[in-house]
């Protein structure tokens, strides 16, 4: 075996180096230096993010391990997008990780987080289902440990057991689907499956695809499979929730697209277009309707993220390079908007322990800057014009419409109507902060910690700039369309 193949995995190696540095620092440094673990991780990861971003232009399409692993400009870009998100999560988590209860275990938190990111890298780059399953599991198992991290809170354990049981269930369903695919085509390589499916679609293929789509649907919390989402998001520590809702969802969405296009591309119009069609309508609508009645901010954002996952799936059903580009752009914008919201929630939770929407009444009077950041996040998530969220929704609708069939027009119309519904509940939060003043115990004025403010500044800058500066979308679009047909990715 040619061991130099490992050198093709540049970003994975970089991430492993970061992980080893953090691990060695956490294990061997004297106790006093451990107070800097969080800062050390942030700095090392920031350096890695920068280096990997600078190497982006030099990236070429290479594959290793006889085609099991592939990386190229598109894969590197999505990994860089995830890196930016993880960096913000790391910065925002600093305050929580240094709190009294977490001090003993904060090193483990960072190590687990980096390992899940490694699993997501593998999911994105895998071109063979064995590697994909390994990536999927190493992305979701450490996450369960992270969800259970707040050992002094009962909710955290409850969320963790719900998460691990549904995660195992979904991966069992997913692997059952894979076994059908294997029986059908005799291979687990995406390219061989693509060739083996051929033009006719047997019942077995439809069953296999239903299993595969529902398995990944669990990870993405698409609607019939979303029941774990709200409980897990509420019970997990806020930093883990933010990680779960943006990074893990973004990686799973991209991997989903790669699987559907590269392995099952030929079955698009007859099989999985209609499955996704139903899933998207259900996801967007049910997510929106349930979000309206939530009073806990984390549950509220959980249902909002369910419906956002539906919008992300519009980029998959588009089945063209514009859809791919707009999906990546949507993930980027979603990372910034959602992390801004979670940054504010985390800051308030760390300072006062309050997470209910009613507690936010009159927040503008006491903490104008925090409520302003929250307002920007809500506007961006709802898609109000000058902010990034509007452009991401605009592009993803454009990508879907380019597919051209009447059914997709109807789908986009339904998504548009749902955008209006979503405006209602996003503005409920804004109303609570700015208009409702009747509140006996208003959250007092407090100054959030340095790291939290840094995280919020980055996300607010992202919300303001990503939409207006056309460079971001244009560069993603030109890169995806220069690759030619989707199947080469």
């Amino acid at each position, binding site marked *: 075996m040619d061991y130099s193949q490992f050198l093709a995995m540049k970003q994975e190696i970089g991430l492993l180096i970061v992980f080893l540095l953090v691990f060695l620092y956490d294990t061997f440094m004297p106790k006093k230096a451990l107070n800097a673990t969080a800062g050390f991780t942030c700095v090392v990861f920031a350096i890695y993010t920068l280096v990997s971003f600078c190497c982006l232009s030099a990236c070429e399409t290479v594959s290793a391990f006889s085609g099991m692993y592939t990386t190229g400009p598109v894969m590197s870009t999505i990994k860089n997008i995830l890196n930016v998100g993880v960096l913000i999560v790391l910065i925002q988590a600093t305050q929580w990780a240094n709190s009294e209860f977490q001090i003993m275990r904060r090193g483990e938190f960072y190590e687990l987080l980096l390992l899940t990111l490694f699993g997501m890298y593998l999911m994105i780059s895998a071109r063979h289902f064995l590697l994909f399953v390994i990536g999927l599991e190493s992305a979701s198992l450490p996450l369960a440990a992270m969800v259970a991290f707040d050992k002094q809170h*009962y909710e955290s354990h409850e969320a963790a*057991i719900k998460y691990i049981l549904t995660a195992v269930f979904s991966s069992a369903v997913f692997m059952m689907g*894979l076994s059908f695919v294997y029986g059908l085509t005799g291979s687990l390589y995406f390219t061989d499956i693509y060739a083996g499916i051929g033009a006719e679609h047997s019942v077995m293929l439809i069953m296999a695809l239903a299993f595969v789509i529902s398995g990944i649907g669990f990870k993405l919390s698409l609607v019939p499979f979303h029941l774990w989402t*709200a409980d897990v998001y509420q019970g997990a520590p806020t930093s883990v929730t933010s990680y779960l809702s943006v990074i893990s969802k973004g990686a799973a969405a991209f991997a989903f697209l790669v699987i559907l296009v590269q392995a099952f591309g030929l079955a698009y119009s007859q099989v999985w277009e209609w499955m996704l069609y139903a899933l998207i309508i259900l996801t967007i609508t049910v997510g929106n309707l349930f979000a309206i009645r939530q009073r806990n901010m984390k549950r509220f954002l959980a249902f909002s993220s369910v419906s956002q996952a539906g919008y992300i799936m519009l980029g998959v059903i588009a089945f063209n390079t514009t859809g791919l580009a707009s999906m990546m752009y949507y993930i980027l914008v979603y990372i910034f908007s959602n992390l801004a919201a979670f940054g504010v929630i985390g800051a308030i939770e760390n300072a006062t322990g309050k997470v209910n929407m009613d507690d936010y009444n009159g927040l503008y009077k006491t903490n104008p800057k925090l409520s302003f950041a929250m307002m920007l996040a809500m506007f961006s998530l709802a898609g109000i014009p000058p902010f990034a969220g509007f452009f991401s929704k605009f592009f993803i609708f454009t990508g879907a419409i380019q597919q051209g069939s009447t059914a997709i027009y109807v789908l986009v119309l339904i998504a548009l109507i749902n955008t209006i519904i979503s405006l209602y509940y996003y503005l409920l939060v804004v109303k609570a902060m700015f208009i409702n003043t009747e509140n006996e115990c208003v959250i007092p004025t407090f100054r959030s910690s340095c790291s939290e403010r840094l995280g919020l500044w980055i996300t607010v800058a992202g919300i303001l700039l990503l939409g207006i500066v056309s460079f971001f979308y244009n560069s993603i679009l030109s890169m995806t369309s220069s690759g030619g047909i989707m199947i080469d990715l």
Partner: protein
Amino acid sequence: MELTMLYYLIPSLFMFCCGVYGFVTRKNMIAILISLELMLNAVDINFVVFNRYLFPGNMEGMFFTLFAIAIAAAETALAIAIIINIFRVASDIDVREINKMKF
């Protein structure tokens, strides 16, 4: 009597359905975990049988099964760790008691 593929596939499908049924109806968390194991083992049988009967030339299904067994072990270990944590807090592992967070 010759053993065809069906003699293996039907029991494996039956195991999978039993697993799903147990996952939905069982009240004890350990029993739920056992149901999950049933599902995962059904997948393993499927892979091995397809490999043995349809594609005896390559070993892909066998290798997948080996990895799937390892992954299942990791999942069970983690789930049991979390169940032990819950037992310490709540002194019970009945899923009906795990209902502090609901709609």
